[in-house]
């Protein structure tokens, strides 16, 4: 069953809502660029990767009307397929220059793309997409919670600062730190539900959170695990962003 929020987001994309497109780009842009870089395997430069990631979204905007979530295809898988085609087109264009010299253009599933075939549907990509969703949820939490509350959560969970130091740093008691942590954690769970619902179309996608250690309906004992999982995902996403920024800087 498809949630209203999800179809709402697709409707916004179809209605050419620029804000929705920016949200999509902001959330999944780095993942897309990382995937294209991985497939490109040095055959395409950093600037080309950025161009192709934008081209992917352009192609998406042209075929968004044809997308039918009822068929059960993951949105991320669909995006990946479009990115593959865009990259395939680019390689075709390059190879076409050499036509007539006894070489033919690369086809869509040519050997150059087999480098990532060992991962099947590309689990790494799906994991990256999930991490992007978690990152989006953390961003939303930053919007929704008080600055002090989120700072405490960031220091304690994302930076791994001991609770005592956090309390001393912001001038509150340790129980207050725990209370505010719990408050932010609850909001984060709520946001994760919303974000995963927004960018997921199949039940399997919606169950991803549990599989990644992010329990959305937890008991008290799960809080520690939840925080650990969130911190790990945040750091992995941080690394992805860092590589993306470094690539952009070198490409300049």
């Amino acid at each position, binding site marked *: 069953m498809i949630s209203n929020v999800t179809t709402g987001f697709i409707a916004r994309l179809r*209605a050419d809502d620029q804000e929705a497109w920016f949200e999509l780009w902001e959330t999944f842009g780095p993942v897309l660029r990382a995937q294209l870089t991985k497939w490109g395997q040095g055959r395409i430069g950093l600037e080309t990767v950025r161009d192709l990631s934008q081209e992917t979204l352009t192609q998406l905007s042209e075929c968004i009307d044809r997308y039918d979530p009822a068929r059960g295809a993951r949105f991320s898988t669909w995006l990946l397929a479009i990115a593959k085609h865009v990259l395939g087109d680019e390689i075709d264009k390059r190879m076409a220059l050499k036509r007539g010299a006894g070489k033919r253009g690369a086809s869509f599933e040519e050997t150059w793309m087999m480098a990532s075939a060992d991962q099947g549907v590309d689990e790494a990509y799906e994991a990256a997409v999930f991490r992007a969703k978690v990152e989006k949820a953390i961003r939303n939490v930053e919007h*929704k919670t008080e600055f002090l509350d989120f700072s405490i959560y960031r220091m304690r969970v994302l930076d791994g600062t001991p609770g005592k130091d956090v309390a001393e740093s*912001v001038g509150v008691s340790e129980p207050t730190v725990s209370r505010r942590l719990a408050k932010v954690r609850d909001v984060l769970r709520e946001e994760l539900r919303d974000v995963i619902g927004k960018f997921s179309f199949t039940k399997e996608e919606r169950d991803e959170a549990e599989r990644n250690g992010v329990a959305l309906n937890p008991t008290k004992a799960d809080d520690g695990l939840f925080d650990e999982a969130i911190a790990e995902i945040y750091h992995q996403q*941080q690394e992805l962003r860092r590589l993306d920024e470094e690539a952009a800087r070198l490409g300049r």
Partner: protein
Amino acid sequence: MTTLLMILGIILGAVAAAIVFVFLFVPLIKTIGKVIAHVFGTIGRWITDLFRLVGTILVIPVFMLLAALSVIIGRWSASTHYGRAVTGESKSAVLCLYRISIGHPLRLFGLHALVEGFERRLPEVVAAAPGRDKPAGRKSQFEGYDIVGSLKGGGSGGKLYIAQPDDLKHAAFVKRGLGSVDQVVIKAFSVHEGSTLPQIIRESRALDAAKRLGLILEHDLTNERFFYVMEYIPGEPMSIVTQRAHADAGPEGLGDAAIGRLLGYSRDVLVTLDRYHTGGLWHKDIKPDNIIVDHDQGRAAVVDLGLITPLRSAMTLTTHGTEYFRDPELVRMALKGVKVNEVNGEKFDIYAAAAVMYAAIEGSFPAHGGLSQISKRCPEAIRWIIRRGMTDYDKRYESVADMLRDLDVVLQAAEPFDVKPAMLPSVGGAEPTGPEVSSESSPEPFIPPAAAVSYAPAPAPADRAAPATPSEPTPAAAPAEMTPALKLANWWSGRYEVEEPTNAGEPPADRANESPRTEAVRRTPRPAPNPGRRPAQDQLKNARARAAERRERAVKRVATRRQSLRQQREKASGLHPAAAIAIGCLVGLVSIPVTAILLSDDQPGDPFASPAVAAAPFDPNRSPAQAAVHAPARADARGTPTPPIPPATATGILSASSGDATATRSTHSATASVVVVSTFNQPVDPGIAKGLGKAIESLRIAGYTVADAANNATPEGVDLLADVRAERGLGASQAWAASRQLSEWFNTADTRYDALIVIEPEPEAIARGITAARALIVDDDSYTSATSLDPESLAHKLREVTSD
């Protein structure tokens, strides 16, 4: 026994072996694997570069031959093309040679830092090198200036020249009070050198802004060219300074001196930004490349006026700026078509300034926006300042001055690493004492001396659009002009109040300490009043009566709250609730065996008799709750079942008939008074009206006192709705933001209700052409995001809000 010891020894040995294997052997193998991978990886790259070099060397003679042939047969363009190819291949060969002979061998031994200077900084510095030193053609000569150099142009399309004014110009500058100007920068646009009319028009706006800030010495516009002259600030971009500082530092981050120096530059940037904002301008392109560090004077200056925008501009926001230093929220707002004067542009400059600080500390761009992690060494308070500057638009520093005060506390501290965020003025700490105090108290002040004395807080000018120059940050106050002021009191009814005439040049007394920008922003988005419904005298009389009534109600409410708080305090015994529970549990645990022993002493003949049955003598005066507890036991004892008395009725818990959501609500929540207002225009869609009716009915069943101002138009309801409309205005469409906005207002509004439910159209549904409603629930200290009119979810959300 021996066998047992042997088994124990074997087990212990196995455990020890496992520990050694896991903690010693596995990491060792991993390290060896990494070293082997590193060696082979380097060798692989070395071989690749070797082959590439060979290929390049083979190709170069071929290109040279082709170039020569092209010259012979007269194909000049082709020869140029082959010539360029030879240059490109030669560069590639030199790079390969460098990597083979120096780069890869050094990397093999882990000396990455050694080659960074050649591979990263050198190309960047070369790329940033100035261009031609003399402008082309006679028309580009600037009268009175001798061109001595050029600077790399930005994205505006203009040419930048460094020039020395001749004696006449120099004397003119001195006469105008501009001091001794030795060198100037001339920014020139010439249609003969590729500049276009739109570029010139855009730049003329920057000229206007620069004039306001007193940065322009001279300008000229002819049919062929446009140029303006500014004072030259020698130095190098902060990006290069930062890179060098990080190259000199270890992997853990900058040393104390470097941190102090870079933060001093950041402080200079904030001081400059404060002057821009005081002058009513938004820089819009703060980034390390646009900050020039003058090493001689130890100060930093902000350059590039290309994107400067007046804060009160009526133009639509644009997405111009630089990635990583531009707030993503700006892009979102620009995509929505928001106007410049509808936002607080200062906050975007604050974001960029915080991003510059991040780049200085971290040595890289904040790729993750506000969530970027600060991993390098830096004072905790600086992390806080950076995060506060880069956080969500609504929660960011209100003004640069606020950020500056926080930064000053750290810079003035004798031990900046000991400064905690709680000590910052924005978090409630003490205000900075002034740079001179710190320099006296600390033998090695963290703040560079030049930066410490460069800032004098700019007093608030009367009008933000008025010009303010760096040398004279406080413009002369406007002549005293007594103007009447109309203050809009009710947007819905158009009611306004006549304020006492005030001096136009001075802010009201209670706002004297506010930043002028805050005042301007507060005044700007309000819609214009609609006088003309009733005579002003009547409206004023009415308003005063209402205000008196509200004041009275507020006083009563505050008195009631204080009384209830006092009662609560009196009830509290001074013992922490958790401690009381713990003691209760302990006493309970101890009392069970004691009671059992006592009972067994009373009935020695029946040691297995149930204590519950034995301890339940008939007592006609016991309470219904006690009766309920003992009922099953009694039933067992007599052999006839007796229905238990529900204890809920005795303790005020609501019955379960109102659904699961209300089953456990306390008396306090159930008696909360709620007012429901609807912003839908009349007549309301029947479907929505029906849903609303059901929701209100269910809340009443749940025990809430509901005032239905949505369907019954009482004067108070209309007044409240008008207030809600005025507060809500055309504010955020996001439900949580709208709820928060209303909550803030509700906190100050003097109503007699505990919570407010606002029924309003669902924005996303409107976009899809569907009529749907959402409910925003707020009370004076908390709020929730929107919920549907479904009775159960409405009751659930309301309980969340009121229970806070």
